């Protein structure tokens, strides 16, 4: 055998100031502390390690694997020496953070971004979701079952949110009829405020059984039923109409479910039964679920228009009064 030469020369490694030595917590270090504490504390950590190694040979045999006494001593030592230094370090870190914050504040001011502190971001408001531009949605509707809710929402949200509706006629429909044409004209009449956030809706008159909504072609899962489309729009629409966080959430959902059933009723008798249920939910309130207009009112209002069989005679005085109030907002 022959001796190997060290490839690297001895370097005097200069440690960066952002680092600090870690105390050697092993038992060997403890033995070192007891034997030559004065020399060890003076030297740097790297020296300490070497020193400990040198003394290890002599003392190793004496220290047993788990010596409770020495462990206790060790902990005492650590607490006595280090708490102060740790506290100082923490102080320093906090101070640096404070400086950083100040710097960032200055940068923000220089850029002219809003001066408010970062307490309420929009991301927080809509449940921490990332704000991505909204997908255009396609709504397929049969001209015999006109989704009046779209117009009602468009009118109700006039000053809050823009629903931009483009209408098309699918090749499966030869003629859409006067009611649908009038609906189209009414949609076009609503003034558009370009400053407001908006969603693009493509309304296609099609020979389809249900009113359905498609938001993304890659995840082709249509949302069926006008009521569920109202729920979707209520979720992406203005904060005033988002009902999921409100205590009335269950009530609104219940009313919307009744609308869903109402639209599926084929006989006049069952329709009237549903209207009675609605009356029960409304009682003497201003609107469904309280004093504020909500998507539930939109749903009921639109459903009643779609049911020409339900005349004023079938409605209770409370519902008639409500209808008058809702008409002011929905304007249909």
């Amino acid at each position: 055998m022959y001796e190997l030469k060290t490839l690297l020369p001895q370097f005097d490694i200069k440690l960066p100031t952002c680092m600090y030595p870690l105390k050697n917590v092993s038992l060997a270090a403890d033995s070192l502390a007891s034997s030559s504490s004065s020399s060890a504390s003076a030297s740097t950590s790297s020296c300490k390690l070497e020193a400990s190694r040198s003394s290890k040979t002599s003392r190793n045999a004496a220290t047993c694997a788990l010596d409770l006494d020495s462990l206790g001593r060790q902990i005492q030592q650590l607490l006595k020496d280090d708490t102060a230094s740790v506290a100082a370090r923490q102080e320093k870190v906090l101070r640096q953070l404070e400086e950083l914050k100040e710097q960032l504040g200055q940068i923000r001011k220089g850029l002219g971004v809003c001066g408010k502190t970062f307490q309420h971001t929009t991301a927080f408001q809509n449940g921490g979701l990332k704000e991505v531009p909204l997908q255009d949605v396609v709504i397929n509707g049969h001209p015999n079952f006109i989704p009046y809710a779209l117009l009602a929402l468009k009118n109700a949200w006039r000053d809050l949110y823009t629903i931009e509706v483009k209408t098309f006629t699918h090749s499966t429909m030869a003629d859409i009829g006067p009611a649908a044409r009038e609906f189209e004209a009414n949609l076009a009449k609503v003034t558009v405020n370009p400053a407001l956030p908006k969603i693009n809706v493509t309304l296609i008159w099609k020979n389809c059984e249900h009113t359905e909504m498609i938001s993304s072609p890659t995840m082709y899962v249509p949302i069926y039923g006008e009521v569920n489309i109202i729920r979707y729009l209520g979720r992406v629409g203005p904060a005033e109409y988002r009902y999921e966080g409100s205590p009335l959430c269950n009530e609104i959902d219940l009313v919307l479910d009744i609308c869903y059933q109402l639209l599926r009723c084929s006989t006049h008798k069952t329709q009237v039964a549903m209207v009675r249920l609605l009356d029960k939910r409304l009682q003497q309130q201003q609107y469904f679920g309280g004093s504020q207009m909500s998507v539930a009112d939109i749903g009921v209002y639109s459903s009643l228009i779609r049911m020409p069989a339900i005349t004023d005679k079938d409605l209770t005085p409370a519902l008639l009064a409500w209808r008058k109030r809702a008409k002011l907002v929905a304007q249909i």
Partner: protein
Amino acid sequence: MVEDKENVENGEQVSKKGAKKLAKAAKKAEQKAETASAVAANNAAGDSAEDHASGRYGLSEMIQSKDKRSERNFVPVSELSGQVGKGLVWVRGRVHTSRAKGKQCFLILRQQSSTVQCILAVGDVISKQMVKFAGNIPKESIVDIQAKAVAVSSKIESCTEQSLELAVEQIFVISQAKAQLPLQIEDASRPETADDAEGLNIRVNQDTRLDNRVLDLRTPANQAIFRLEAGVCRLFRDILTEQGFTEIHTPKIISAASEGGANVFTVSYFKDSAYLAQSPQLYKQMAIAADFDKVYTVGAVFRAEDSNTHRHLTEFVGLDLEMAFKYHYHEVLHTIGNTFTAIFKGLRDKYAREIESVGQQYKVDAFKFLEPPLILQFADGVAMLREAGVETGDEEDLSTPNEKLLGRLVKAKYDTDFYILDKFPLAIRPFYTMPDPNNPIYSNSYDMFMRGEEILSGAQRIHDPEYLMERAKHHGIDTSKIAAYIESFRYGCPPHAGGGIGMERVVMLYLGLDNIRKTSMFPRDPKRLTP
């Protein structure tokens, strides 16, 4: 007979044994003669007097316009249902199939896409010989038939006229077909159902069809395809004429290549050579500069591209239009888009029968479209592709797979087979395309798609000669070669835009067929110059 006589004469001379033998032989001969005469009678016995139907059938002499025969009242097969129980009518058609069995003959008569069953049964009017004759007429021969239309109790599934049959009284062959046909019409018109394992799987391949196009074109599907194709042309003309367009005819022999110049056919032109026009673009634009305001043209277009694909031909019919506008090229875009919608609506409403009979052979979904047509921005299209996980650049042209994918995405979302993509990147368009005023990346150009395949490519053209020079230089084009083109804008030219479509491609995609050769009557491709 003669032998018999001899036997009788020599009868007394022969022995008993011999007599027995002779008697046996005589009996045999007698039987033989009996059957022979029976056969002879059966075999029409020539055209002897026994055939009581002679004169009611046979090969007609070649029609050389000798008689007018205006007393013969011919009725189209499709209108026979109005003649039931009304006496004798004349029908001219082709023998689709003919089958004689015993005393009857069933013959299916075809007239374009309509078929009707004819029956000949031996009786007072029809002789055995006539039935035999009818059974032997080769398929595809043209015959004149005089018959009575008779209602039938059960539907005849194999014919288009299902509620009646013709009781034939006279039948004459006008033009006889060869007994051996290169392809059977029945095979050529068999529905293409890939997953039908039980049914007959005999197909006629594309080349056999094209080599014998005359026979192939007789199938109901082909009859319908070319009637529909004529409909596309007619609708294109009618709709544009109604909107104030003028039809123009542009030269097909030109001196210089109009676009690019790589893929033009050269033809000898006296002592010089010339090219076949690959687009009427230049002449359309010149017509605009000459104050025709709105023009269209229908005519042959030649492309010397050696591409053997399902959608390329070297010669096709181009339907091109060009239109001057006031301030925004969307005036033109909407005109073209609405023209398409009107064509689709016209086909849907007026050609339902043709579409159905093509559908019987080639199973495809009906063409779907929106009114007004769906217009998407190129950037929207790219966004849709990216959402589907396709990496594509903002200024990158749509590759064929991406084009098809985008077609599928649009179909899934909007349920339309026709859409317009607007604002293509400037970098991928020809030099004469007007750039977008708001964004230098894009241009005022558009493509239209049917079933995910591009059918029209158009744009606002630059009508300012100086700017056109600048753009040409930017594209590294030798401006001396296009001097005439630029020159035509020097005497004032209104802003204009336009586009062109290939008629065959539009018909192919409208019907959802898989090959453009199916919609070209006599297709020309790099490998085919005949028939």
